[in-house]
């Protein structure tokens, strides 16, 4: 396979590379301007809206979309669903890149990013949900790095290191699941303290659980999407046959349907406990129903039908809708339904520079995935380590 890629190297000036380079350049310039001029001129942030797209999308959404790593590795290593083994490495790589970009995005957003280690080195504030998230994300990024390192060791031929890390698989998986459970839900818990600022339809005492369950749904759906996309884009590196991938996709659809069903149920439970049915008739209520019916119920039905009738394309569309729904939910909580009592003129809308940085981060993730997956054994097994997982 490697001979093949040597024989036909991808042209450097492909349309993908040109577009990616442009987007990266744009985002890079925006980020440079942010550090030169400050957050004021480069963003639409103000004293009423101190968190914008960089927190709402880069951090809140990024962490949720990177949940595929812990979801799939737990399923395979802890719950014995070994038939999904080929999906573990790409999911962990996506997770690692996702978390890496979360940290990069955060560094752009923080007022004094060089002080990021302060909570651990200088003075800790353990009463803050953010403290727990910072600790968990730091540890989980390290965990993901170790979990993906065997791919690099195989690539570099470092057999002893590969063997050492491989022997820690179980411990790493359990550690990853603990950390993910904690920080995925704690991201929601950050909004527990803002009952007067977050719209009651999205505010709930259960919001940490909402965040965790929707992150699992996002993780499963991201794996469905990412495996389909890489199967198409990096076909020369893929070992799994199209039929086998469809088989796994149909299996994942069942998991996706169950998780979305649970999510829908707990959202309705929260609605009933807080007795907010009347609010559904307001404009915010319509927006809420749009999110819940269009991006939770609909893809759930898509997953069910796709699984029963074995239609991989329908399942992939449902996965896309689920991912869009989790993005929408995080943006609703952090932006659209936040500060809802403020007059329209005081509401936040992202600045073009903010969008440029966020787009560049996503682009960077895709480019890095492609770069690594075209070189290291991510989508295929290394010949020296065949069948050893």
């Amino acid at each position, binding site marked *: 396979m490697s001979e093949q890629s040597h024989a036909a190297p991808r042209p450097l000036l492909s349309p993908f590379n040109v577009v990616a380079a442009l987007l990266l350049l744009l985002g890079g310039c925006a980020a440079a301007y942010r550090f030169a001029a400050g957050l004021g001129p480069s963003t639409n942030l103000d004293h009423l809206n101190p968190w914008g797209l960089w927190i709402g999308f880069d951090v809140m959404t990024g962490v949720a979309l990177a949940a595929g790593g812990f979801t799939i590795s737990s399923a395979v290593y802890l719950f014995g669903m070994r038939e999904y083994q080929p999906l573990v490495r790409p999911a962990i790589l996506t997770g690692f890149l996702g978390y890496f970009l979360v940290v990069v995005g955060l560094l752009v957003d923080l007022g004094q990013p060089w002080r990021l280690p302060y909570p651990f080195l200088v003075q800790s504030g353990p009463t*803050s949900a*953010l403290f727990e998230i910072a600790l968990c994300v730091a540890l989980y990024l390290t965990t993901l790095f170790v979990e993906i390192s065997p791919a690099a060791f195989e690539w570099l031929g470092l057999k002893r290191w590969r063997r050492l890390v491989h022997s820690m698989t179980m411990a790493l998986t359990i550690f990853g699941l*603990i950390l993910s459970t904690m920080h995925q839900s704690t991201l929601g818990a950050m909004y*527990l*303290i803002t009952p007067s600022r977050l719209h009651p339809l999205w505010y709930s005492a259960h919001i940490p659980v909402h965040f965790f369950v929707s992150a699992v749904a996002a993780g499963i759906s991201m794996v469905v999407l990412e495996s389909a996309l890489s199967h198409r884009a990096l076909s020369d590196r893929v070992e799994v046959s199209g039929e086998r991938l469809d088989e796994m996709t149909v299996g994942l659809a069942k998991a996706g349907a169950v998780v979305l069903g649970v999510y829908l149920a707990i959202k309705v439970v929260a609605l009933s406990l807080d007795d907010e049915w009347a609010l559904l008739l307001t404009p915010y209520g319509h927006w809420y129903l749009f999110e819940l019916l269009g991006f939770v119920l609909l893809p759930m039905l898509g997953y069910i039908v796709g699984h029963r009738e074995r239609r991989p394309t329908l399942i992939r569309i449902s996965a896309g809708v689920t991912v869009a729904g989790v993005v929408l939910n995080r943006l609703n909580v952090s932006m659209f339904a936040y500060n809802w009592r403020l007059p329209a003129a005081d509401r936040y809308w992202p600045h073009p520079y903010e969008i440029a940085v966020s787009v560049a981060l996503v682009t960077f993730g895709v480019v890095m995935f492609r770069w690594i997956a075209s070189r290291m054994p991510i989508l295929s097994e290394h010949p020296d380590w065949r069948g050893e997982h």
Partner: protein
Amino acid sequence: MSISRRGFLGTATLAAGVAAGTGRARAGAGKDRFPGYAGSMGLLHDTTLCVGCRACEIACARENHKPRPTARLGDRSVFGRLRRISDKLYTVVNRYIKARGKKPAVYRKHQCMHCQEPCCASVCFVRAFTKTPEGPVLYDPSVCVGCRYCVNACPYHALAYEYDNPMSPTVQRCTMCYPRIKEGKSPACADACPMGAIVFGKRADLVKLARRRMAKYPGRYVDHLFGEHEYGGTSWLTLAGVSFDKLGLPTGCSHRPLPELTSGFLSIVPLVITIYPGLLLGFYSFTRRKERLAERARVEAAEAARAAAEEAAAARAADQKKLSEARQKKAVDLAVAKALATRDSEEGAGRSGGGEEGRS
């Protein structure tokens, strides 16, 4: 198995350590209601006395070395729009209701409320905020990372950030003139107010003063002292003649301090660290056990199948043997019968030779 058990115990010990470590730090935001420091200071803003001269704004800017507000004392043009506090304006007076006929306009001064159990202090992951026993909530810029969670979480929108400072931006907010209080002086705004609309004193005394005013002039005030109980109470207290939601303040606030909303959730964290390893190893051993049982069943089935096949083969061989023996016997019998018959016929024909044939 012994390794995983050791691993589990190790994690459990770690979790217990984490719980013990954070438990002490969280005592301030724990279950026991904190009634506020005894004898702490506060300010009472009586909006029915405020005439919107903005002397407090100007005094505040001078005290905090901020640029003097461009609108001069008494300039009414600033009231055309709702102004917000910012990094250059720690306090701001807004006109919420215009004068109509004999009814005067209603103004309210806004600034950090200096909560009894501050939300900003509990959300800060470097503990930059401290509630002092004197009353003011203080902020330490030397540890601030600039996450702005405090600005985002404050229910009163009372914190500002230096967005135009690229290298060392910090949170900016009213300090309740802590240095002046330490010197035994009143905060600058209270000193500057020509109407006596801002009263500085012990918070407990101010609550009593406000109650006396409400009792004495029931028509003048709505029956509510804002800040007495809101989210556990604030050092700034506000009296008004109109509903507080008309003055840009949240109504229907819980009396429970906001930090309690997070501390309940965070107390689950050590539980997750303790329970998960055991639970997950349990799941894992279920999976392993199922796999082992399936493997054993497979091996047993294979053995049984082999045994059955062997038995069947043996039976078939035996059958075959029996069959071939029978066939052989039959053949022998047939041959014997044939020979006998031949001999008989030969004997019958003329008794000469053929005895050998018949014997064979």
